[in-house]
């Protein structure tokens, strides 16, 4: 491993942060989703790196489960989104604020 693990981890941190910033600044629900996927992928990178670092496979298993969860999340999320789009004709999350106060 000639590239230090910390480099991978910094990359992971950066991607994760990008994802969170995306969640905070974008209004299109789809892009919000994708930002969350980005965050999950950043976590995956960290897991893989750490698995390599520690020399055990727990980390890689974690990635496996994250993948599954991510897949299901996308299914559920997109279903919700499509459903909402059908009744409101928008995917702008800022316009989804009937409930507040």
């Amino acid at each position, binding site marked *: 491993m*000639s590239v230090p693990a910390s480099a991978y981890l*910094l990359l992971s941190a950066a991607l*994760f942060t990008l994802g969170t910033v995306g969640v905070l600044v974008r209004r299109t629900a*789809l892009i919000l989703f994708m930002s969350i996927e980005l965050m999950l992928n950043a976590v995956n990178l960290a897991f893989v790196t750490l698995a390599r670092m520690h020399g055990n496979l727990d980390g890689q*298993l974690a990635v496996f489960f994250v993948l599954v969860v991510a897949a299901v999340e996308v299914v559920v999320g997109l279903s919700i989104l499509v459903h909402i789009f059908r009744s409101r004709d928008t995917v702008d999350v800022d316009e989804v604020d009937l409930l507040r106060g």
Partner: protein
Amino acid sequence: MEVLLFAVSAALSLAGGVGVVAARQPVHSALSLLLVLGSLAVLYLTLAAEFLAVLQVIVYAGAIVVLFLFVIMLLHARTPESRPSRVGGQWSLAVPLGLALWAGLSSAALQLPASARAVGPEFGSTEAVGRVLFREFLLPFEVASLLLVVGIVAAVVLASGPGTLPSAPPARGREEA
């Protein structure tokens, strides 16, 4: 070689990440996400995670991003953010928070015990991962299947749409699983 590979992949993934967040069109975001996923798959390879690299390409790039694109098409891929937002100041929130988060995560990462162990060629192979999976992580594996069921049911429920009678047969959404 490895450094170069890392550098290129890292750069691409960062670029993709920025793309996801910054693209005006959801389609571009999706494509940028694809770029990130691909680059990460490469990085997984450099980290001795062959199985995951493959999985990454198949599941993520192959299924999830496609799903995203599919939905984007379905929703006519409009660009809603051209209208002014009802909520201002998100950027001024996001930047300091993001910086703080990044600083925190990075410094945490840098303080991890950095002892790279030598690993055998087996490490990260499908067999090795499978062995651990079925030996130690069997229960979560089973639970993951429940999760998939949840996903299916969710799609079924939500796809039936407003006004649909409950007795109407679920017609769509099966394919997503």
